[in-house]
């Protein structure tokens, strides 16, 4: 659950994220956004905190943007219902935002000089996708994962290697002392046409490697480090390779990488190398804007409102795809 007050679609007056990581950490969860009853309990407090930090009384709000999906329906409904009620009470327009378009909007929120067209690589615990972004248009999906998201792969590999949560930083930390060439894991889909991704086979290959080594005795720290490094190298290579392909085939020289995995240091370094080699510009929003937050939803909502989009109070939430949006 998160709330933010944003002025003009670009200026963040406040951004509050109700962290639930602590609550769910013992379960090795992926995204700390689980229990809708927690949302019911904290939605008012989070919104009030955002207003207070911004120093903006609620009657000064001019519009409400709220996430409609995709995600866990129960949690989405809490936010959507609250947003509808608030917009109704204040008599201001409401617009439903696609969570992934929110992530993409974080790029322009972080860098006001960013100008379309550009390619957006979205890498998170729930999604992995490439978009082409044009001014004043809905982001065009070029390709997405056919099975697991890359962040999910990191989380599940962390579980296989008995590392901590969240899995991304845990795998990266373990990988630092490992040999990325120790195991030649597959790079799924990279030689196929199109822009889709697949990380399930890579996860399976890691599971098989863990099993193979475990049969010879318990995994030592060196085993864990080598597998983590080899996995990370494979996953990152897939992301970098697909992004380069998209830039080349779409004839675009600008890339932005958003979503939680954009914080990965190996991804940043290898993408920066690729940018030098291929001659494109790349930017990464700061981590606070890469992980789930409400400021990016406000930014995406502002773009929609500027185009004249409005939603009625009958807007429904959705678990996958693009629903009614």
């Amino acid at each position: 659950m998160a709330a933010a007050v944003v002025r003009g679609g670009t200026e963040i007056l406040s951004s509050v994220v109700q962290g639930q990581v602590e609550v769910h950490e013992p379960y090795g969860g992926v995204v700390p956004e689980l229990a809708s009853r927690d949302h019911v309990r904290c939605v008012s407090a989070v919104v009030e905190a955002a207003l207070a930090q911004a120093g903006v009384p609620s009657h000064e709000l001019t519009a409400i943007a709220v996430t409609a999906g995709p995600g866990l329906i129960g949690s989405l409904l809490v936010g959507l219902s609250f947003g509808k009620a608030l917009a109704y009470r204040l008599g201001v327009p409401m617009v439903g935002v696609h969570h992934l378009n929110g992530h993409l909007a974080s790029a322009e929120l972080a860098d006001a000089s960013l100008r379309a067209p550009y390619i957006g690589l979205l890498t998170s615990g729930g999604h992995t996708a490439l978009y082409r972004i044009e001014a004043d248009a809905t982001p065009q999906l070029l390709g997405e994962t056919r099975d697991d998201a890359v962040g999910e792969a990191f989380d599940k590999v962390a579980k296989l290697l008995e590392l901590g949560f969240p899995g991304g930083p845990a795998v990266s930390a373990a990988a630092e002392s490992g040999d990325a060439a120790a195991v030649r894991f597959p790079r799924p889909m990279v030689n196929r046409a199109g822009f889709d991704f697949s990380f399930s086979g890579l996860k399976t290959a890691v599971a098989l490697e863990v099993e193979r080594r475990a049969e010879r005795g318990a995994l030592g720290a060196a085993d864990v480090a080598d597998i983590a490094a080899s996995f990370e190298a494979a996953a990152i290579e897939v992301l970098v390779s697909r992004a380069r392909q998209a830039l080349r085939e779409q004839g675009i020289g600008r890339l932005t990488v958003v979503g939680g995995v954009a914080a990965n240091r190996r991804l940043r370094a290898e993408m920066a190398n690729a940018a030098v080699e291929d001659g494109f510009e790349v930017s990464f929003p700061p981590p606070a804007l890469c992980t789930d937050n409400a400021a990016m939803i406000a930014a995406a909502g502002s773009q929609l409102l500027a185009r004249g989009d409005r939603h009625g109070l009958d807007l429904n939430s959705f678990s996958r795809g693009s629903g009614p949006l």
Partner: protein
Amino acid sequence: MRFHSRSPDATQAAAGLLAASLPGDGLLLVLSGPLGAGKTLFAKGLAEGLGVDPEAVTSPTFAICSEYDLADGRRLAHLDGYRLESAAELESAGFLDLLVTGTIILIEWGERFRDALPADRIEIQISRPDETPTHRRLDAVASGPTAARALAEWGSKLVGEIGRQPELPEEKDG
């Protein structure tokens, strides 16, 4: 019932045959197996057998539940209990709302919440019986009359259409 799959394609095809064996008013399928066993692949095959584009079926770990409307008016609900810790969280994810006529429910990691699940169901366990990377063993057990009929139908389809004789398990309770 026990079935040996020698490739991801065979697993997907077997799941497609299960789709064709399900009753019109829906059934609960519980799918278990370790990370990387092929649970989401099985879900893709089931969805394909129900007329859904398998490429649209992705891991539901993030959203917990993905729903697909079928051409015949039925609905497929693909759930993932991986991130859920309790039956209460399963309920919070909207599980009870899915228990309506015409909904086929496939839940991964659902064996962790057996007490919260309807009794009439098929449980499918995917395992890796040896070191062959693509070899999977599927063990399916029905509990309840509707599930037993569907499982028997699935078994006969596997024999007939894939041409492999599913091994009979040593013992089964449904």
